[in-house]
C-alpha cells in the first residue's frame, strides 16, 4: 500500500503529522516510538525570543474537548536551531517549524533565520488565540494573512504553510488570502477560542480567562473548514481538529486535505499518531484503497 504523499514538494512517508504544541520538539515521544515513522513533525510554536508562557492553570477538560492557554512557552528560535533541530534531524524526522511573531517583520525575520537550516517546511501560525497583537488576534483579518504570507514567502526558499485560525467568519477567504500572499499550502484549524468557569470559585478555570478549544468537540467545524478551504484554493490543505482515529484522518483526506495533523490525541496517548497511522492503513486496506492519495478530495457531493 502506498501511504506517501507530496506536500508542497516535500515527500512525506505518510500523511500523519503531530500538530504543533502537542508534540514538544519530539523528545518525549522518542521515548515511546521511533518518530521518523511519522510523515513529519510540527514543532512547538517558536518565537524570536524565548517566551515564559501564561501562568497556570493552562489546561482544562470540556465535553469531548480541551481548552489550553499555554501562551507559546518556547525557548526561542536560536535555542531551537542549536538544541532541538539537530536532534530532530538526527532522529530522521521531517521537520515542520511552526513559528509565531508579533508583527509582519517578526514573521519575516523568523523565516529568514530558519531558511538556512534543515527544516523541511515552515508553518506560519497567524492564529494563536492565546497571544495578542495590539489587542486583536492577528489571524482573523485576510489582509494581515496576505501580508504575513507575502513577507515570509519572500524571506525563505522553504515551502510555506500558513496556519489559519477558525475564529473567522469566512475560512475560504482566509485561505485565499494566504494563497494570494504566496503560501505553498494552508493548515487548519488552530483552536477555537473558548472559556470555562469553575462553579465553586466563580472564577475562570484558566488563568488566561480564555483558551483554545481542541479535540473531537471541534471536529465537525474543522472538517467543514478544511472542506471549504480545499474548495477555495488550489494549494494543498493540511487538516486538523479532533482527529483521534484513522477514520477521522480519512475523513479529512476525503474533504480535500493532503495530510493531517494530530494534536489533542497526543495528550491522551503518547502512541496516538502511530495508532492513527496504523488505523488509516487498515481503513485503506479494508476499503480496497491501494494508494492513500486516492482518498484526497474523494468526497462525493451531489
Amino acid at each position: 500500500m502506498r501511504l506517501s504523499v507530496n506536500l508542497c514538494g516535500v515527500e512525506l512517508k505518510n500523511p500523519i503529522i503531530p500538530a504543533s504544541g502537542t508534540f514538544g520538539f519530539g523528545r518525549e515521544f522518542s521515548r515511546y516510538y521511533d518518530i521518523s515513522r511519522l510523515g513529519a513533525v510540527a514543532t512547538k510554536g517558536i518565537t524570536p525570543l524565548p517566551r515564559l508562557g501564561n501562568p497556570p492553570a493552562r489546561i482544562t477538560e470540556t465535553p469531548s474537548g480541551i481548552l489550553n492557554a499555554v501562551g507559546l512557552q518556547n525557548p526561542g528560535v536560536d535555542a531551537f536551531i542549536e538544541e532541538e533541530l539537530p536532534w530532530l534531524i538526527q532522529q530522521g524526522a521531517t521537520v515542520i517549524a511552526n513559528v509565531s511573531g508579533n508583527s509582519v517583520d517578526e514573521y519575516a525575520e523568523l523565516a529568514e533565520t530558519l531558511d538556512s537550516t534543515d527544516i523541511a517546511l515552515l508553518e506560519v501560525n497567524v492564529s494563536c488565540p492565546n497571544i495578542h497583537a495590539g489587542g486583536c488576534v492577528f489571524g482573523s483579518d485576510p489582509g494581515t494573512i496576505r501580508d504575513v504570507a507575502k513577507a515570509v514567502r519572500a524571506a525563505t526558499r522553504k515551502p510555506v504553510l500558513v496556519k489559519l485560525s477558525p475564529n473567522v467568519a469566512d475560512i475560504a477567504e482566509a485561505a485565499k488570502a494566504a494563497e494570494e500572499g504566496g503560501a505553498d499550502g494552508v493548515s487548519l484549524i488552530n483552536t477555537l477560542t473558548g472559556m470555562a468557569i469553575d462553579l465553586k470559585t466563580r472564577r475562570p478555570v484558566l488563568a488566561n480567562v480564555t483558551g483554545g478549544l481542541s479535540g473531537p468537540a471541534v471536529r465537525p467545524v474543522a472538517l467543514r473548514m478544511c472542506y471549504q478551504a480545499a474548495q477555495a484554493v488550489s494549494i494543498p490543505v493540511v487538516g486538523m481538529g479532533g482527529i483521534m482515529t484513522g477514520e477521522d484522518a480519512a475523513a479529512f483526506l476525503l474533504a480535500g486535505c493532503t495530510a493531517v495533523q494530530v494534536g489533542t490525541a497526543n495528550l491522551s496517548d503518547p502512541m496516538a499518531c502511530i495508532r492513527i497511522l496504523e488505523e488509516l492503513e487498515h481503513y485503506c486496506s479494508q476499503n480496497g484503497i491501494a494508494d492513500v492519495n486516492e482518498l484526497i478530495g474523494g468526497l462525493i457531493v451531489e
Partner: protein
Amino acid sequence: MSNALPPFSAKLLSSRPLGGGMRELCLEVPDEFCRASRPGMFVHLKVPDAPQHLLRRPISIMDLEPEDNLLVLGVQPKGEGTRLICSLREGGCIEMLGPLGNGFSLNDAKTVWAIGGGVGVAPMLYACREFSKSARVTASLGFRTRDMIFSERDFHESAFRLVIATDDGTAGFHGNALAALSSHPLPDLIIACGPTPMLKAVQEFALGHNLHCQLSLEQRMGCGYGACLTCSCRTMSRDGEEHYARVCADGPVFDAGKVVL
C-alpha cells in the same frame, strides 16, 4: 531510545473503601512498571469507558508490592473522572500510563519528616515504606477531621513514628501536620505533599531552618509526560530568574528552595 513503558491496561484486583470517601484500588502492573517506580511518582489514568473525558487523571503511587506486581492507589472521588475511576469493578481494566514524574530523593538523609495533608497523604505511604529501609521516617499526616483519616495502620507499620493531626481536633493533634511536629527534633530532609497552604507553610519552615525539603505539587495536566507544557509551576533559578517548570516531568517533586508557590 524507545525505552518508556507505553500505556498499558491494568487489571483491578481489588477495590475497597478507605477512610474519608477515598477508595483503595489494587492493580496488577508489569515488571517494568515496578522496576521504574519510585516514591513520589504518579500514574496517569484514562477515565474508563468515557471517551468524552479526553484527559487522563494523575494519581500518585500510594504503595507498590513488586513481588506481586501490585500497585496500590488511593483515589478521592472528586469530580466525574475520579468518580468513574472509583466505580470500576474488580476484574475490570483501566488504561494506565506510568510511572511518571521524578519522585522524592532520599539522598543520604538519615532522618526524614514525611508530611502529608488530605489526599496528599497517599504518596507518603510508599515513601515511608521505601525510605524506612535506610532512614528514620516520621510521618505526620493531616486530615480535616477524624472521619477522613485513611491508611493509619499501614503508616504505623511502615514509618518509624506516626503523628496524626486533624484540623478540628477530633483525632490526634489539633492543628496541621507541620505544627504537630513542633516538638520533634529537626530532620535531615522534609518531604511533603498536600494542599498549597500546607506546602507553603512547610516551605517557609524548611527555608527558615535551612532544611533540605522536597515538595510534591499538583497541577492540571495534559499529557503527563512532558510534551504539552500545560502543567506549569513557577520556579526560581539561583540568579532569581523565573521559569515555568513542568509539574509532570520536572516534578511533581520540587526542591522547596526553587519553587514559587
